[in-house]
């Protein structure tokens, strides 16, 4: 189980030097995303500007007025903690192929990003979603801010089991219904759903002013389509649909093309919504992915 790796001190020490790639806006402009900044509040002066009617007179810099005889408004920046949510797909497709430990990889990435997010004392939580008994079940941990409380995530991470359908749109609906302030949502899934569902989910998260980051996880066997050769009847773990297929070198190549096409489509959707996209294919590459590829994708710095 790969998720246990995310709680090993040796591994966590490698993450200590990383911080989450959050674009904290310097100014507040209408229609643009700006996380953690509310004008006028706080104690750290940010800038001066000329007084305009309607400005709060409490922020007039009277000393500047005495010296320059101009009315200047002092602006302050009030830093506020950002809420970071690692949202892991726990559907049945994440449990297959069993040897790939795809769910373990997703949970490990989610937990590792949460740990990184705690570097700035941001409020962090981990969630998992899947359909259970016909209803969407979105479970999240409480928000934790300090790394000392990181191990509180462990019981939740270890308890997540794969099962049920994906229904990404329903999961996003439930998340948005919690009416939390806009923050960072790291969406970790295999995205073995329709292209429309993926785009719809990402679009709604972006519309809610969340900074969305997508981690696309796939298993090694799954991504290389390396199954024992022969004629098989394959059954979809989520829908139960059955199809006859044949495994062999040609079908392996075709399977790899399909995975590449799927990843390409998800990447395009993310790009179109200015969402950070990262690929984590293969549980064996977990540490390399966290230390080297995540910075390359801009997900961490």
């Amino acid at each position: 189980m790969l998720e246990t790796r995310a709680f090993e001190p040796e591994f966590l020490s490698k993450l200590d030097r990383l911080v989450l790639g959050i674009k904290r806006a310097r100014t507040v402009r209408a229609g643009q995303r700006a996380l953690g900044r509310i004008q006028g509040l706080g104690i750290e002066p940010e800038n001066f500007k000329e007084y305009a009617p309607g400005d709060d007179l409490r922020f007039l810099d009277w000393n500047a007025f005495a010296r320059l005889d101009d009315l200047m408004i002092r602006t302050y920046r009030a830093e506020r903690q950002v809420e970071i949510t690692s949202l892991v797909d726990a559907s049945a497709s994440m449990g297959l192929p069993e040897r790939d430990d795809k769910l373990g990889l997703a949970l490990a990435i989610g937990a590792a990003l949460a740990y990184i997010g705690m570097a700035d004392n941001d409020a962090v939580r981990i969630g998992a979603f899947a359909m259970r008994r016909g209803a969407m079940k979105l479970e999240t941990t409480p928000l934790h801010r300090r790394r000392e409380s990181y191990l509180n995530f462990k019981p939740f991470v270890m308890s997540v089991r794969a099962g049920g359908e994906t229904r990404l749109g329903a999961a996003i609906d439930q998340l948005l219904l919690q009416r939390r302030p806009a923050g960072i949502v790291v969406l970790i899934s295999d995205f073995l759903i329709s292209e429309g569902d993926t785009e719809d989910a990402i679009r709604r998260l972006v519309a809610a002013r969340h900074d969305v980051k997508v981690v696309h996880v796939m298993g090694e066997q799954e991504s290389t389509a390396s199954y024992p050769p022969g004629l098989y009847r394959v059954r979809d773990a989520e829908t139960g649909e059955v199809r006859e297929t044949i495994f062999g070198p040609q079908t392996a190549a075709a399977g790899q093309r399909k995975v590449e096409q799927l990843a390409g489509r998800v990447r395009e959707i993310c790009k179109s919504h200015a969402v950070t996209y990262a690929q984590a294919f293969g549980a064996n590459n977990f540490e390399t992915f966290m230390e080297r590829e995540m910075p390359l994708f801009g997900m961490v710095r």
Partner: protein
Amino acid sequence: MGFLSPNNLVYGLSLALLVLIYLRSRSRPTIEVSSLMLFDEAPAPVANVRHVRLDPLFWLEMAVLAALTLAVAGLYIRTVPTPGPGRIHALVFDLGAGMSAREGSESRLDQARRDALEIINQAVPGDEFSISGYALEAQVLHPQSANLDDLRKAIASLAPMAVPARTAALRAALMRARGASVIDLFADRTPPAGILADVSSVAKVNFHLVGSSAANLAIVSLDSGIPGSSKGRVVIRNFAFHPHPCDLVIELGSTEVFRQTLMLAPREQMVVPFGPLLAGGTLHARILTADAIEADNSRYAYAPSGSPARMLVLSPDASVRDDVARVLLAVDSNFQIETAAPANYHPAPIAANTQAPPKPYELVVMHDSDPLLGVAAASTLLIYPPQARAGQRSPYGISVTGTVPGAALHDQLLDVSSGAQAMMLDATRIIALPDWIEPIASASTIGHPAFPVAAIGRSAAGRIGLIAFDIRNHLLLAPDHLDALVVTVDLVKQLTAPNNVQIVPTGAYLTVPALKSARVTQPDGSVREVQADQWGRARIRPMDAGRYEIESGSLKTEVLANYYDATESDLGARRDAVSSSSEPASVTANASPAREVRPLLLWLVAMALLALLIETALLVRHANRWGMRHV
């Protein structure tokens, strides 16, 4: 190349089972995947050819099963024998009467002897041989030895006996030869398949079939009839598949009483009447026509003298007295028979006006009654004797220890392995016999595996016969209890025969009165000495048909041995006609040891193990490749 146990090829059905399992497993294994988005539907033509795909695991398993099946079936090849010291040969000879059959200038045993000598002559230094023979019983004629000269002498001294070769004896002979690496069996007929198959698992068996189909005539039986009263009958059988002439001569003592030339149809059994004889005595029938077996061309019978003999039958059951009297009259109608219930019997007093005592009884038959020791009789036949009362002394040393409600009768001369049905008897006494009484028939029941039911012995009081089963309810006259009648008639004949003449079948044990030792002159003229036992008897066993003369002091006894066995004498029947399924597992038609059978058991098992190892390696590799946690 062949199979030692071809019936075991039935295990080859496991191959078909494997194919079925393989096809079923290959049909459409279902695996669960994360999503069907990544898989295309298989094109139909690809699905249709899935059954003929080469699968190394499947073919390795086929190879394993095929090798094991061939090993179980006993696949062998014939190879040139590898000479080497330490090989132990067992030469087993059939010494039954059939081996005495002459074909041209030599007998079948001569052929077997020649083949055996050829094997011995080709022996390499270090080879050892043992020689065994079998007929009624198996016997080791020469122990294991590397002295070829002694072995040649032992083979030269082999002689056929006028007795049938029993299957049980063959089995015993082969059992004794199990220590040998090669068993050479010389016989004139094919043994049952199972016997050779049993031995072939521990030793190589070469079966040498000697002789060919030959014509043979035999005297089946000889009945003297009753002198001056009824005709005698001789039964002759032609075992050839073609008509055969037969010159038949019957002599009474040294006087020829009948001579006739007959023509017997193929496989015919003819009853030839003669007489009636004018006097009693030893009757000798002979076939003068030359044929294959000499022993069954001669037969003796005793014609009772015309003088009346007194018989006494005592029984509390009137019907038993009547039945026994009928049987006695059937043996000799000149018998004068008195019957009485034991309680009512009183010996006739000697009349005052007669000086001569009454003539003693020739035979007293006592059924279920205490022996009357005061009755003078030459012979006594006790039938179903009662248990001695407390304090009472057992007569003649015969003690009755119990009674069983029923038992199965076994004739001692019957070959148990021939599958003969045992006859069921009614109430039967269990009797402990003294040593001087010889059992001639036995029975068995639950809790008593074998106990004597018919016996005869000679004591100072005369000849004593014993029948342990009850003959009430007309047992002797019941047509489905013929064996009981045969045993009774045989006993009566032996008890009423002259003391100095005994007519017995070959192979039977008999005792004759003797002093310290007896001089036995055998049919071929040879003489040997036999020591008498503590009861003054010499025990002999005639194995050749013909006349034996036993002399011991002033005592002279003549033993006439008859031989006939329908199976052994039948030299015309196809000797391998038992059935194709009973073909012996390993048969070498001639004695030439040019090639020997070499079972491939070890090679086949090694191949199976090798295939299993390769399969295991492939499975492990397969499991590692596809990340399975088990194979």
